[in-house]
């Protein structure tokens, strides 16, 4: 039985303006209110017999209302009144039949309205801002607690990991260490943030992106970010373009020491050359395609350390580009080796730009012929997503990057330039995307699809193809694709807006797909 994933969408109001976002919330509330009103009248119909009974009691001796038997037994049958007065009565049987029909109609309408209100609330993630704010506050509390009581925090984390593993293993019927990350997932960002602060040197040196994103009025919606004209708003994806999180400060400190070691290990000379794999990737027309393609780079055994660049001819004659970047391959001769991740995560722009994989993508794009004005979209899994974020942060003078898609990448603190759309897909218990120690910024440009692993035997959400019977690492592209599919099935303007934006960037005929391989050497 395959695993299942259920997703929630945060941020990225896409084509929705503030006005119609409000409208969605208003309609959901109105539907609930109207359902309540209908429910009250339905209940009144259901209990009308009690009200009628109270009124009916006013004529206890009426032979028509209560039958001749009752009045006769009370000695009333022979009164003059009983002979001359015309008694009247409702046909209560028919009246109650009408009442039941009205009650049934009311109940049906109430249920339908409540279901629709739920659909709206779910699909539009109306409360996602509040969720994200709560998550940020929770992370902050965990971080502060871990800094003040590191042993207790470590013990608590270990306890959660052990408990989750034991329960998961019992359910699986055999030991499975992947559950280590599942039970402890709510603590990952907070603990990692504390660790980052410890490494970075105690106090927060810089404000994080998130610090700047929290609205002053506490509403969760930032008015200044959403223009009234319905266009895709442009706003900074980070506060100043230079700020980054403490995790990135810590990564910078580590990278200062690790980069020379990495260079010594496999050399600093980068060679990028075109390759021709037997089987490559297909045309990209949607965000979903980008996820399939970045996965296919691995499934089709395209050489390690390689990326794909697709050239599209747009209707207006201009050229657009799609860059597909797989994740860490762990080979020392590849620019996508493990230690490079640290440099890519650095808060230092120069350090990020000098990372082997970022240099490799830059060089491949240059060789492929990407011109400064050409619209570019990028997708990356894991390290590939961090590279895409680095390109969208630090290479915007050189390339016209308009949309990046990241899957399982810790990019919350990268100073991505304003106006660039970011679609991020993450899993709650994959650990890797939590390495930034913070939730992604939630704004119209940045949409995050957060998948949650469903418990065993659950039928909720979307099936993860090929995941098999056992719990496995959820950082894989199978999970990322399922998380996206689940969000897409839900619909909603945020996702639709990002899909539309992505299509507008590419929007043309595929001219060619070229593959580029990077190799590291000493000279």
């Amino acid at each position, binding site marked *: 039985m395959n695993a299942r994933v259920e997703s929630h969408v945060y941020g990225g109001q896409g084509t929705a303006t503030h006005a119609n976002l409000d*409208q*969605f919330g208003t*309609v959901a509330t109105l*539907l*609930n209110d*109207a359902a*309540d*009103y*209908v*429910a009250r*009248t*339905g*209940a*009144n119909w*259901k*209990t*009308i017999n*009690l*009200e009628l009974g*109270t*009124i*009916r*009691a*006013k*004529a*206890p*001796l*009426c032979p028509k*209302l209560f039958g001749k038997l009752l009045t006769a037994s009370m000695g009333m049958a022979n*009164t003059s*009144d009983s002979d001359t*007065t015309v*008694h*009247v*009565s*409702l046909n209560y049987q028919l*009246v109650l039949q*009408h009442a039941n*029909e*009205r*009650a049934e*109609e*009311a109940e049906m*309408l*109430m249920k*339908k*309205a*409540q*279901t*629709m209100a739920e*659909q*709206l609330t779910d*699909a539009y993630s109306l409360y996602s801002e509040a969720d994200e704010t709560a998550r940020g506050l929770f992370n902050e509390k965990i971080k502060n607690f871990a800094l003040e009581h590191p042993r207790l925090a470590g013990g608590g984390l270990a306890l959660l990991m052990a408990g989750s593993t034991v329960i998961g293993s019992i359910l699986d019927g055999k030991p499975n260490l992947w559950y280590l990350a599942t039970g402890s997932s709510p603590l990952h960002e907070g603990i990692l943030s504390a660790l980052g602060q410890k490494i970075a040197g105690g106090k927060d040196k810089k404000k994080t992106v998130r610090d700047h994103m929290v609205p002053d009025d506490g509403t969760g919606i930032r008015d200044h970010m959403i223009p009234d004209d319905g266009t895709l708003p442009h706003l900074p994806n980070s506060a100043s373009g230079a700020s980054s999180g403490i995790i990135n400060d810590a990564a910078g400190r580590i990278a200062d020491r690790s980069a020379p070691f990495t260079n010594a290990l496999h050399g600093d000379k980068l060679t990028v050359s075109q390759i021709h794999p037997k089987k490559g990737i297909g045309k990209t027309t949607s965000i979903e395609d980008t996820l399939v393609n970045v996965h296919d780079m691995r499934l089709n055994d395209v050489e390690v350390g390689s990326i794909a660049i697709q050239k599209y001819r747009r209707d207006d004659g201009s050229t657009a580009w799609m860059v597909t970047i797989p994740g860490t391959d762990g080979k020392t001769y590849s620019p996508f080796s493990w230690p490079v991740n640290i440099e890519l995560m650095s808060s230092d722009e120069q350090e990020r730009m000098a990372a082997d994989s970022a240099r490799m993508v830059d060089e491949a794009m240059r060789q492929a012929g990407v011109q400064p004005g050409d619209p570019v979209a990028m997708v990356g899994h894991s390290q590939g997503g961090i590279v895409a974020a680095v390109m969208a942060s630090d290479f915007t003078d050189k390339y016209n990057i308009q949309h990046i898609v990241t899957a399982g990448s810790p990019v919350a603190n990268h100073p991505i330039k304003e106006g660039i759309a970011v679609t991020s897909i993450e899993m709650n218990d994959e650990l890797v995307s939590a390495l930034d120690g913070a939730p992604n910024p939630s704004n119209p440009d940045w949409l995050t699809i957060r998948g949650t692993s469903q418990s065993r035997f659950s039928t909720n959400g979307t099936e993860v193809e090929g995941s098999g019977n056992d719990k496995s690492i959820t950082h894989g592209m199978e999970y990322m694709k399922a998380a996206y599919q689940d969000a897409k*099935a*839900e*619909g*909603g*303007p945020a*996702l*639709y807006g990002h899909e539309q934006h992505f299509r507008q960037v590419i929007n043309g005929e595929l001219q060619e797909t070229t593959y580029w391989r990077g190799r590291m050497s000493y000279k």
Partner: protein
Amino acid sequence: MTTLDQYTVSNTFEAIGRTGDTLSNAVSGLDFYNGCPCPTVLRESQNLIASLCTSHANAIKDMEDVLSQAKALIWEGKAGEAFHTDVDGAIVIAQTAGNGATTTARFIESPEALL
């Protein structure tokens, strides 16, 4: 979330609480020599049903207004299509319920409603 059953239970408790009213009505109704109060019972019962028909129609009208707002929402994709299908279905139910209220209002004033 509100359910109709919650209101039904609360209405029932309210009715039980008014048992005194029922008894008091019954006692005053024993004064048979002033004539049988059944025409009053009929009128009050008809008024009660009629007022319920009015509030039912108002609730349905409110719902129809909200449904027309829901119908105007732009929502693409499968879930959006499903939502709009639900809205259309709810509009039909609301129309049926509205007609039902009118039918009951007419019925209660008609000879058919009497024994």
